[in-house]
């Protein structure tokens, strides 16, 4: 897509906004609609848009496939790890009350961490699926 000037310029303007919006949805999910699932998908959409406009090779230089594959597992591990941490701190599995001194703070920390894990896995899986299809197409 070397010659699509308008597409490239508009994409360059849009992609930072899309990525920033993904982080907003990720970390504002406690207060408004949104959360890890939606944020992960939006973040992946930004990267996929980049891949579509500037080519899959450029996208792979930004987000290498090996990193994507690690992040797929890292998100699930973070989520499950929060559960193990609450077990070790004397609570039930995924009982966030024990994560901090006050139950409410523990809940906030736990939700923050597991939503981040969800977002990481969702974004990485979507990007990985896109890479797989784009690779096959050539």
């Amino acid at each position, binding site marked *: 897509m070397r010659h699509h000037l308008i597409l490239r310029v508009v994409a360059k303007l849009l992609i930072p906004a899309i990525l920033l919006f993904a982080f907003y949805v990720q970390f504002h999910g406690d207060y408004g*609609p949104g*959360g890890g699932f939606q944020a992960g998908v939006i973040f992946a*959409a930004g990267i996929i848009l980049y891949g579509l406009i500037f080519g899959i090779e450029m996208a792979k230089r930004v987000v290498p496939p090996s990193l994507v594959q690690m992040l797929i597992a890292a998100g699930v591990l973070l989520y499950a790890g929060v559960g193990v941490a609450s077990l070790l701190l004397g609570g039930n599995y*995924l009982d966030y009350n024990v994560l901090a001194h006050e139950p409410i703070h523990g*809940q906030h920390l736990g*939700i923050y961490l597991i939503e981040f894990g969800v977002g990481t896995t*969702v974004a*990485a899986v979507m990007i990985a699926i896109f890479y797989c299809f*784009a690779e096959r*197409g050539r």
Partner: protein
Amino acid sequence: MIDIALLAFLAATALAIVQIHNLFAVVMLAGIYSLLAAGIFVQLDAVDVAFTEAAVGAGISTIVMLGTLSLTKERERTPIRMRPLPLLLVVATGAALLYGTLDMPNLGDPNAPIHRHVAPRYIEESGSEVGVPNIVTSVLASYRGYDTLGEVCVIFTAGIGVILLIGGRRRREQDKRAKGAESMDGGAGGGGA
């Protein structure tokens, strides 16, 4: 009123998807279908679900379907013939489901069983127990944290499955072919690749 309009558009889109044989148009219509569904969810005050439907249904899955289309053909190979038995089965199942909805409580009925089990506790206690303003998040991440962990594992498994099935296979085939060519050369060419 807006409900009826959205549902009418939804039905029209579904019928169009069944009728059209150009798969590119079908993918686009499926995206529109998801967007209309998201509109209905907003109308039902389910903003989180609408957000997910718009992002996943209308956004990412359309891209994945287009990616699939670029690997296959753009038109259905053989038009599907009308067969009486499957049609009868579908109509009977649909009628049974419609009959089943007669027993269901009305939409938004506060005395419906689903609103009387654990929902009151979530609504009343979430503020003091979890302290997150968005109750959807507190149910999803805290009260039902174990379910959400399962969902993330489903996505994890799906991603790994796609990578195993179609990721990197082509490269391996090329390697094998290259290796076969090399062995046929008998190592005479050496670094010809």
